[in-house]
């Protein structure tokens, strides 16, 4: 009796509260996310599909797309290797300065991307520390593709490692040790035990890393030099077109980036769904 009364008494405010919070959340999402996203596509298609396709087909647009793919194609695998190594180092070994390494991995998260870019200009630019030497050997880093790759790698450095470290920490190293005692070589252990255990987190980290690598603006902007058709990635191309009042062109390229983001988001949700499933099935198996 008592319980029923109490439940009745508390059910109404609770439900109202829930509805109110939901409305606030939806309102925020619509105003700050969905509406702008819709605007991007609407602006891109304002003069019709033909104009949209034409502006994407322009050589500058195509070269910016190719450049973005190239930069991400180099930066993401590098970060994959770095992320797995760093996570392994951080979770399987005890050494001096471990906490420091953890902090260093996080630096790109806390430093403004513009500063990340400037660091490379100061190091490799014409007036930079290594600038004259590089110049003498005919190597161009700043205002060229290597600079874009460097800046992108720096900015996306923590993504894979940060995704893996908590997981590998909770899993512990016992399965790796078991594999070794059972006669597995280092590579066999890695590919048969370590990697399968972290595959979902790894894929998730790579996706986030890729989204950031393709969408990065600040750091890339500093080292790029905005040479049309040579050093402009998609975000830079968007900015340049916008500054030239080519709204359809700007939004067309922007819509491609937005599509990429949506695609990443979809795969991420899929993974999370899949990953949660795998976690629920496997977590009690560990300990």
């Amino acid at each position, binding site marked *: 009796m008592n319980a029923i009364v109490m439940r009745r008494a508390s059910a109404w405010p609770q439900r109202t509260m829930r509805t109110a919070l939901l409305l606030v959340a939806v309102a925020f999402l619509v105003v700050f996310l969905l509406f702008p996203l819709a605007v991007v596509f609407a602006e891109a298609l304002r003069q019709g599909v033909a104009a949209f396709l034409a502006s994407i087909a322009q050589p500058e647009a195509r070269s910016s797309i190719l450049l973005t793919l190239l930069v991400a194609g180099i930066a993401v695998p590098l970060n994959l290797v770095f992320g797995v190594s760093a996570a392994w180092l951080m979770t399987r070994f005890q050494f001096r300065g471990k906490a420091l390494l953890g902090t260093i991995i996080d630096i790109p998260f806390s430093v403004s991307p513009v500063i990340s870019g400037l660091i490379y200009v100061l190091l490799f630019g014409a007036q930079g520390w290594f600038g004259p030497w590089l110049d003498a050997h005919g190597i161009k880093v700043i205002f060229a593709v290597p600079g874009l790759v460097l800046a992108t790698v720096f900015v996306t450095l923590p993504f894979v490692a940060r995704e893996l470290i908590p997981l590998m920490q909770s899993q512990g190293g*016992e*399965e790796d*040790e*078991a*594999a*070794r*005692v*059972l*006669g*597995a*070589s280092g590579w*066999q252990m890695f590919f*048969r*035990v370590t990697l*399968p*255990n972290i595959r979902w987190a790894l894929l998730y980290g790579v996706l986030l890393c890729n989204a950031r690598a393709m969408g990065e603006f600040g750091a890339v902007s500093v080292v790029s030099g905005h040479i049309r058709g040579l050093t402009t990635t998609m975000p830079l191309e968007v900015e340049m077109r916008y500054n030239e009042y080519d709204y359809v062109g700007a939004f067309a390229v922007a819509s491609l980036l937005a599509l990429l983001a949506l695609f990443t988001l979809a795969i991420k949700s899929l993974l999370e769904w899949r990953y949660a499933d795998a976690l629920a*099935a*496997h*977590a*009690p*198996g*560990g*300990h």
Partner: protein
Amino acid sequence: MQISNLTRHFTGFAALDDVSLSIAPGEFVALLGPSGSGKTTLLRILAGLDYPDGGNVEHEGTDFLAAPARQRKVGLVFQHYALFRHLSVRENIAFGLRVRPWRTRPRRHDIAERVRQLLRRVQLEDCGDRFPAQLSGGQRQRVALARALAVEPSLLLLDEPFGALDAQVRVRLRRWLRELHDESRLTTIFVTHDQEEALELADRIAVMNKGRIEQVDTPEVLYQHPATPFVCEFIGKVNKVPLTYRHDRLAASEWSLPEAPWADRYGAAMAYIRPEHLAVAVDEAQPAWSARLRHIYLAGSVTHLDLHVTSMDQALEADIASEELASLGLRPGMDLRIAPRRAVVFPHQHGSAELLSELRWEWRDSNGEGRDAGALAPPAPALSM
């Protein structure tokens, strides 16, 4: 297998301090000790997962430590099993065979057959396609064992194999493991902090404390003739009675021991007396403590008596066979004359609390066992041998 002078230091303490141990082929040896005593470190060194700072290990005439973990042919069962969570039970067991170089790798069909045999042996025929997360603790434990046995190891290492299981499953698995060992005669070393487990399972027990082996003996010898104060206290229950040297005897209040082997060189000593070695109805002619019987705890075939010796203001525990309870007419609150019939005595280092285990003296009442026959037939310790 011969382990000689192994030493392993971690920052700040010695996990292993000059540990030597020889193990006969087919022997079942327990490393028993409290946590932090170095037993797991020793096991990990044998498995190749850790390396000693000094000492060596010889196995079947070869330098064991020179071989990396993957070449040692050691079966290791982890405390938390460490099953590969992404592989089925069958694949877990087959792992050690699949990772062999192709020249020595059995054929697919032979691997499947071997896995089938092992599943039967660990009584999990129906669980081959399940994943570790879908198994109970006891089942996981057996999968871990089957996985370790699949590589046909020459040495089986078990790290707290029953630590994570509930009490009933633990006892059942213990018996099962002992039977398995009796069939296979595989040299087995297991680590445990549970003395009951060690006493029940092992051919020999190495008691470890602070990185050292205190004593290696059969369960019976270990229980009846503990070599050091630590072993006295760690294995079974024991009463500690401080003694002082007075008038050529080592005395504790009304009761005293005849002259110790070390005569008057040490002024104080500690006597370790098992509860079942405390006679509770000593006649007036013999020296004894007068004690009050505070509580009687009936624990099945054995009864624990909670006694208090007023002259020393010390609580002692005596065990008698429950059958004797009625014939002695024991009731809580009554006064008894009690005296040890056996004791292990260690002298104190002068002016310190440290006991000198090398001067161990095993004393036995020479006035004949018949004196208080009937009063006390010591219950045999629960040993399975």
